[in-house]
């Protein structure tokens, strides 16, 4: 009998290994397969039992709640049935994440059975310009948050001549509320590798780095194992699949610096320096790592490339709306019942996600605010939840989609405290190179602390707006430039939280 138990960080953090030990006790002859998570975080550990009618899922299972009835595919209060019919999954359009939870992340054959490396084979057979044209035609934009057209970036690197070029994957997923990169790397690591090899062929690079945050120890293990296996199987290294293309890939670890998610700071860090942000221009596509032309793309951007090459740009561009083509990967997080990964074509509203997918707050209280796009994203009240998920619509509303994280807060949240935290976080993580960010954040946090004590609120808010304006317009990068967004949104949408305690 076969049972599938996920082995991603979420399932493990909720006792998946204890479930495995208990399974072995109950049924020593059991064939236990490990797969990644399907991204339905609130149901983890979600086990699936093979039966005549396909896989039958149960979740969230703990070592204590595990029973023999489950192993026979029988009825149980944790029975979920065929998980692919679950509305949370059935309503999604999984393109980048089509394999997660279905395959063993460490098994190269599993990956290839589900279309893995088809995109690479096509890339090897195409001239580099044709690959870049495919990426342009797909409409893919950078999924790290800045949403720059990927094909245009690649075109620049392709056209810039140099003795050496680099592909750098930004896997420094530091935004709170985001875990899509982690899921991809833990549950389908070969997909990221394939995307990077295709990028290398397209622009003429032969060295790549994955800059991974230290906080993701399991992703590190999975990536290293997948790189070794890919190299042995001829998908990496010299003469890839017998062609003239050569590409080496290495994982490098960050060391707890949020700013290193900013691409130029990341490059400095890879070079072994303090992660100080560089002025642009020059663009990294022209002078990037060690001064050479460099593609810097987010994990999801690169992991979407194999789909585009294998199925065609048109297939991808068929999804989405306006200039936001394809799918966006939303991560529902924070105070929400059904937190997890939701990959959908652009255009859905926040409300649909929070209600239909998220099913309201985890605490059972009223939802008060959601922060979209990480710690530099705006806090949005219920009146803004009909915004469609689309890069331009969010920008027009003074918000940003960023890397797609949505953090829900119930009505116990104190928005003045959140605003203060935004400034504190900026002060802590600022690289220190430019004054507006380095000093503005410290002063901003001080002013907010005084406001929260009820001291000179009017004057404080005026000063705070002054600081915000300086940070927004004068900072070198998005850290200082966007910190005013959560701060201002908290003040504008939740003014009652900035009144003296007696009035609250």
């Amino acid at each position, binding site marked *: 009998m076969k049972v599938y138990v996920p082995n991603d*960080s*979420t399932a*493990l*953090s*909720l006792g998946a290994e204890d479930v495995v030990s208990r399974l072995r006790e109950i049924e020593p002859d059991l064939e236990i397969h490990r797969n990644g998570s399907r991204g339905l*975080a*609130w149901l*983890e550990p979600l086990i699936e039992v093979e039966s005549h009618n396909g896989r039958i899922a149960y979740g969230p299972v703990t070592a204590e709640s595990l029973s023999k009835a489950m192993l026979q595919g029988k009825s149980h209060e944790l029975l979920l049935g065929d998980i692919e019919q679950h509305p949370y999954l059935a309503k999604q359009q999984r393109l980048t994440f089509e394999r997660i939870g279905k395959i063993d992340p460490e098994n190269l054959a599993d990956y290839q059975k589900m279309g893995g490396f088809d995109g690479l084979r096509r890339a090897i057979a195409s001239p580099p310009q044709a690959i870049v044209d495919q990426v342009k035609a797909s409409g893919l934009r950078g999924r790290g948050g800045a949403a720059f057209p990927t094909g245009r970036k690649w075109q620049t690197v392709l056209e810039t001549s140099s003795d050496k070029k680099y592909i750098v994957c930004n896997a420094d*997923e*530091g*935004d*709170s*509320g*985001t*875990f899509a990169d*982690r899921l991809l790397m833990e549950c389908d690591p070969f997909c990221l590798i394939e995307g990077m090899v295709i990028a290398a062929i397209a622009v003429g690079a032969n*060295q790549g780095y994955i800059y991974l945050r*230290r*906080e*993701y*120890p*399991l992703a590190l293990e999975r990536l290293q194992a997948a790189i070794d296996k890919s190299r042995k199987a001829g998908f990496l290294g010299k003469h890839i699949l017998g062609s003239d293309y050569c590409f080496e890939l*290495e994982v*490098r*670890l*960050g*060391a*707890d*610096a*949020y700013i290193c998610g900013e691409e130029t700071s990341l490059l400095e*860090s*890879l*070079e*072994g*320096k*303090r*992660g100080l942000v560089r002025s642009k221009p020059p663009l990294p596509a022209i002078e990037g790592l*060690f001064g050479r032309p460099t593609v810097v793309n987010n994990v999801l951007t690169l992991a979407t490339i194999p789909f585009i090459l294998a199925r065609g740009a048109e297939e991808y561009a068929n999804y989405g709306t306006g200039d936001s083509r394809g799918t966006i990967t939303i*991560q*529902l*997080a*924070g*105070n*929400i019942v059904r*937190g*997890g990964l939701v990959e959908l074509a652009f255009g859905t509203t926040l409300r649909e996600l929070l209600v239909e997918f998220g099913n309201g707050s*985890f605490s059972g209280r009223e939802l008060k605010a959601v*922060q979209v796009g990480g*710690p530099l994203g705006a806090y949005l009240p219920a009146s803004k939840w009909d915004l469609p998920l689309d890069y331009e619509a969010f920008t027009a509303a003074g918000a940003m989609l960023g890397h797609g*994280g949505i*953090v*829900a*807060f*119930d009505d116990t*949240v104190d928005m003045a405290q*959140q605003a203060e*935290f935004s400034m504190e*976080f900026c002060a802590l*993580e600022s*690289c220190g190179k430019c004054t507006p960010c380095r000093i503005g954040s410290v002063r901003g946090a001080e002013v907010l602390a005084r406001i929260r004590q009820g001291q000179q609120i009017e004057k404080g808010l005026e000063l705070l707006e002054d600081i915000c304006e300086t940070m927004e317009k004068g900072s070198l990068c998005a850290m200082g430039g966007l910190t005013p967004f959560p701060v201002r949104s908290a003040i504008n949408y939740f003014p009652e939280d900035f009144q003296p305690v007696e009035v609250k």
Partner: protein
Amino acid sequence: MADTTNMNSLINSAIENHRELEGPLLPILHKIQADIGFIPTECIKLISNALRMSAADIEGVISFYHHFRRTPPPAHKLEICRAEACQALGARELERHAMKHLKAKYHEISADGSVALEPVYCLGNCACGPNILLDQKLIGRVSPARFDEIIAGLLRN
């Protein structure tokens, strides 16, 4: 904890195994911290000679990254996520509870000397907070009561 001779050989092998890499400094520092538990002052001169970098530049890099520590660590490292998604699920209450329980603030060591308490900003398990990382093991949905269970086996009486 390694003695001095052993420590020097660990430092030298970390340097030798990584010096040929492009941008070798971070991999060297990571390896030293993984093997020794912290970045001892003794290693600065050795790295400086090997990489032809000034000691000041190396110190500057070490101090930039929150991960690197300069003093020997206690037996355990407990990191509590302070980021927004965990805040929304009670991380602030959890950190107050942990500080009271361990009699330590962030960047301090528990009163019994066994646990280093550190803040961390996002562990990527944001749908199942509050989260902690205990000696590299991620644990989700940590209520104060669950925290007490987890920590019970670690503290010395």
